[in-house]
C-alpha cells in the first residue's frame, strides 16, 4: 500500500516535470529591448504618442505571433528628457540583457554615443540629428536627418520659387544642437550651388510674440522661412504672421512669407496649437499622415483602435514614428530568426546593415523604404511635402530625395 502511494507520487511528479519542460519549450524565447524617452517633461507631447506607438506595435507582434512562439519584451522608461536618467535607464537595460535599444532625444543620444559603441548596441533614436552619426557605428536614424529635411525644404523652395531672382530665406531654429544641426549643411548646400539666399538665422527663445522678428524679416525681403524646431514656437510665429497678414496663401506668393518646417515642427499638434493660422504651412517628413488615405493610414488607425488609443494619439505622426522604429527592430529580429542565427545585439546589428537593395524594408508607415548600410545610417531617405489645407495636412507633389545631401557629403 505504501509502495503504491509512493509510486503514484513519483509518477505525478515526473508528469509535472515533463509538462513544465514541454511548456517551457513551447513558450519560445523572449527578446529584451529597451526604450528610454520623455513621457513627461519637455517634449512629452511628442514622447507620449511615440511610446504608445512602440508599445502597441510590439504588443501586436506578440499577439499576432509574428515571431512564432518568441516574444518581444520592450521595457519603456520615462526619463523626463534628462540625460542623467537616460544614462541610468540604459545601464539598467544593459543589466537586463537587451539586444536592441531605442533612444529619444538629441542630447542623450550624443551623450551616450560612446556607450552604444562600447557596448556594440544597435540603437535607433527618435532624434534625426545628423551629428548622431558622426564617430558612431551603432546609431541608426529612422528617417532622413534634420539636415536632409532642411536641405529638402531649401531645394523645394529653389525649385518652386515663382518670382525672379534668388529666393530669400530665413532659418528659424531651436536654440540647441537639435535646432542648429541643419544650418551648416544648408549653408554647404548653398555653397555647392543650391539657389537660395539665407538672409537671416533666428534662434528663437521662449518669445510669446514674434511681431518684431517678423517685421524685421519682412524688411529684409524674406520670402521663405525654414523652421527646425518644435511645434509651439512655430505656432506662435504663425499666429503673429497671420495677424500681420504676412502668410502666403500659395507657395511663394509674392510680397508674403511662405512658412515651412522639418519633422518636429508639424503634425496635428501644430494645427491644434496654431488653429486657422496653420493654413498653408508647408511641412516635410518621411512619415505618412492619417489625413491622407492609404494602406499606412489604415494600418496605423487599426493598430491604435486595437489597443484602445484615443483619436489624437491614433492620428499623431509621432505615434507613426514610434510604430515605425518598433517595426524596424521587429523586422531585424524576424530576419535574423529566418536565417536561424541566435538573436543577439551583434546579429541584429548585422541585419540592420544588410537592410538595403533587395533587402530594403518597406514599413507602411513611411513614404519610402528603410535602407541601412555601413555608409548609410539614415533609414528612410525619401521625404514628402505636406501643406495644411482646411485644417489638415495634405501631401503636395510626389515623395522626393534631396539632391544636395549627396552633393555636400
Amino acid at each position: 500500500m505504501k509502495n503504491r502511494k509512493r509510486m503514484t507520487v513519483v509518477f505525478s511528479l515526473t508528469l509535472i516535470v515533463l509538462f513544465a519542460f514541454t511548456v517551457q519549450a513551447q513558450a519560445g524565447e523572449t527578446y529584451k529591448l529597451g526604450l528610454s524617452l520623455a513621457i513627461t517633461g519637455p517634449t512629452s507631447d511628442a514622447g507620449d504618442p511615440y511610446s504608445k506607438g512602440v508599445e502597441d506595435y510590439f504588443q501586436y507582434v506578440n499577439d499576432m505571433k509574428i515571431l512564432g512562439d518568441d516574444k518581444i519584451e520592450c521595457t519603456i522608461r520615462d526619463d523626463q528628457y534628462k540625460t542623467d536618467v537616460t544614462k541610468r535607464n540604459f545601464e539598467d537595460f544593459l543589466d537586463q540583457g537587451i539586444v536592441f535599444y531605442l533612444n529619444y532625444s538629441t542630447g542623450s543620444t550624443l551623450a551616450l554615443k560612446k556607450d552604444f559603441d562600447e557596448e556594440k548596441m544597435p540603437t535607433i533614436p527618435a532624434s534625426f540629428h545628423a551629428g548622431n552619426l558622426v564617430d558612431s557605428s551603432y546609431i541608426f536614424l529612422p528617417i532622413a536627418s534634420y539636415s536632409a529635411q532642411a536641405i529638402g525644404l531649401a531645394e523645394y523652395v529653389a525649385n518652386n520659387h515663382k518670382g525672379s531672382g534668388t529666393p530669400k530665406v530665413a532659418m528659424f531654429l531651436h536654440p540647441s544642437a537639435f535646432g542648429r544641426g541643419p544650418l551648416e549643411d544648408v549653408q554647404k548646400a548653398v555653397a555647392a550651388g543650391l539657389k537660395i539666399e539665407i538672409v537671416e538665422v533666428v534662434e528663437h527663445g521662449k518669445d510669446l510674440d514674434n511681431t518684431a522678428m517678423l517685421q524685421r524679416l519682412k524688411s529684409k525681403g524674406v520670402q521663405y522661412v525654414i523652421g527646425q524646431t518644435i511645434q509651439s514656437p512655430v505656432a506662435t510665429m504663425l499666429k503673429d504672421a497671420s495677424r500681420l497678414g504676412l502668410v502666403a496663401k500659395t507657395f511663394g506668393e509674392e510680397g508674403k512669407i511662405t512658412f515651412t518646417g522639418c519633422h518636429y515642427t508639424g503634425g496635428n499638434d501644430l494645427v491644434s496649437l496654431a488653429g486657422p493660422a496653420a493654413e498653408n504651412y508647408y511641412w516635410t517628413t518621411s512619415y505618412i499622415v492619417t489625413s491622407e488615405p492609404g494602406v499606412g493610414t489604415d494600418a496605423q488607425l487599426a493598430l491604435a483602435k486595437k489597443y484602445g488609443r484615443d483619436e489624437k494619439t491614433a492620428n499623431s505622426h509621432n505615434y507613426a514614428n514610434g510604430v515605425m522604429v518598433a517595426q524596424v527592430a521587429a523586422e531585424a529580429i524576424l530576419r535574423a530568426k529566418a536565417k536561424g542565427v541566435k538573436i543577439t545585439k551583434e546579429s541584429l546589428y548585422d541585419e540592420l546593415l544588410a537592410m538595403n537593395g533587395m533587402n530594403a524594408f518597406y514599413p507602411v508607415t513611411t513614404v519610402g523604404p528603410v535602407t541601412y548600410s555601413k555608409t548609410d545610417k539614415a533609414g528612410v531617405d525619401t521625404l514628402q511635402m505636406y501643406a495644411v489645407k482646411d485644417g489638415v495636412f495634405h501631401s503636395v507633389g510626389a515623395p522626393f530625395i534631396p539632391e544636395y545631401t549627396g552633393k555636400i557629403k
Partner: protein
Amino acid sequence: MSTNRWLATGNYFTSYQDEQRLFFTHLDRTILSLFLFMLFVWPLLFSLSNKYMLVLDNILIAMVAIIGLNIVTGFAGLISIGHAAFMGIGAYTLASFSRTLGDSHVIITHAWPLMIVLSGLMGAVFGAIVGLPAMRLKHLYLAIATLSFQMIFSWTINFLEFFNQGQTIAISRVFWFTGKLGRKDHYLFWYYVLLVVVILSGFMVRNLLRTRYGRCLSAVRDNDRAADAMGMHPGLTKVYAFGLAGFFAGIAGALHAYVYRGVGFESFTLHHSITLLAMAIVGGLGTLNGSFWGPTAIIALELQVETLAEHAGQILPSDWNLATALKPFSFGLVIVLFLMFEPRGIANWWRIARSYTKLWPFRY
C-alpha cells in the same frame, strides 16, 4: 569628565575644548568607524548592478554638492539658487581641457585627482566672485543675484562654440594602477573615490565649524550687525562662504563629469539648482548630517516613485497618464510636507533618535 567615556550620560563639559570634541563618546567614534568600514567593505561582499551603482554614485556626488550648499545657505544663511551652475563650472573646467587637449589626454585620464581639485578651485573662484554682491545684498535680493549667475552660466554654455553649445563634451575613462577602467569597474571605482571625497569633505566641514571661521558663518547668519560689532567681517565671511560652496560644487561637478564620462549643459540647469536646494531642505539646513540625508532621501524617493509609476502604469489605463504624473507630484508633495511639518529636515529626526540613545541607561 566622567570616567566612562563610552556613555554620554554623566559626562559634563568642563572645558571649551571638551565641547569642541569631534566625538563626544568612544561609542560615537566606534559606531562611525564601523559604519565607514562597512561602506568600504560591502561592495566586496555583494555585487550591485551598474544601475544601482550609478544611483549610489549619484547620491555621493549630490552629497558633496550639498555640503557646499549647506555652508552657504545652511550655516551662513545666504540663499543660493545657482548651485548647479557652480557644479557646472567644475564640470566645464574639465570639459575645457577635453576640448583643448582631447578627451583622452593624459592630464584627464591619469591626473584626474589633480583635475578634480583644479575644478574645485575654479568653482571657488567663481563662487567668490558671485558672492561679492552678498557684501551688499541680503535675502531675496541675493537669491536673485545667484539666479542671475545661473542664467549667465546657461547662456554662456548654450551659445559658445567652445563649450559645444551645451552638447555633451566627452571625457574618457580614467586610468588606475591596474590600467584603464572598464565598464564593469567604472562605477565601483568612482564609488570608492566619491566615498573618500565625501568623508574628507565631511571632516573638513566638521572641523571648519569648530574654527573661528566656522563660528563666523553662524554668527553672520544669526545677526550680521552683531557679528560686525563683535569684530567679524560679515562681507568677507559671506564671500568666503560662497567661495567654499563653489569649491565643493566644483568638485562635485568634476566628479559628475568623470562618472557620466561627459559634460552636458542639461545636467546643470536651474531645475537642478532647485533640486539641490530641496535636498538641503529635506536633509536639514544648517546641519552636516543633513547633507547626507537629503540626497539619499530625495534620490531614493525618486527611484521608488519610478518603480511605483511603472507598476501603476501596468494597472491603470495608459491613456490616463496618471502613473507618469506621480514623480513630479510626489517630489513637490515631499518638499511641501517637510516645509510644513519638519522644517528642520531629517537631520532633526536623527537628532531626536540620538538624544534617546544618549540618555541610556536612564529613561529620561
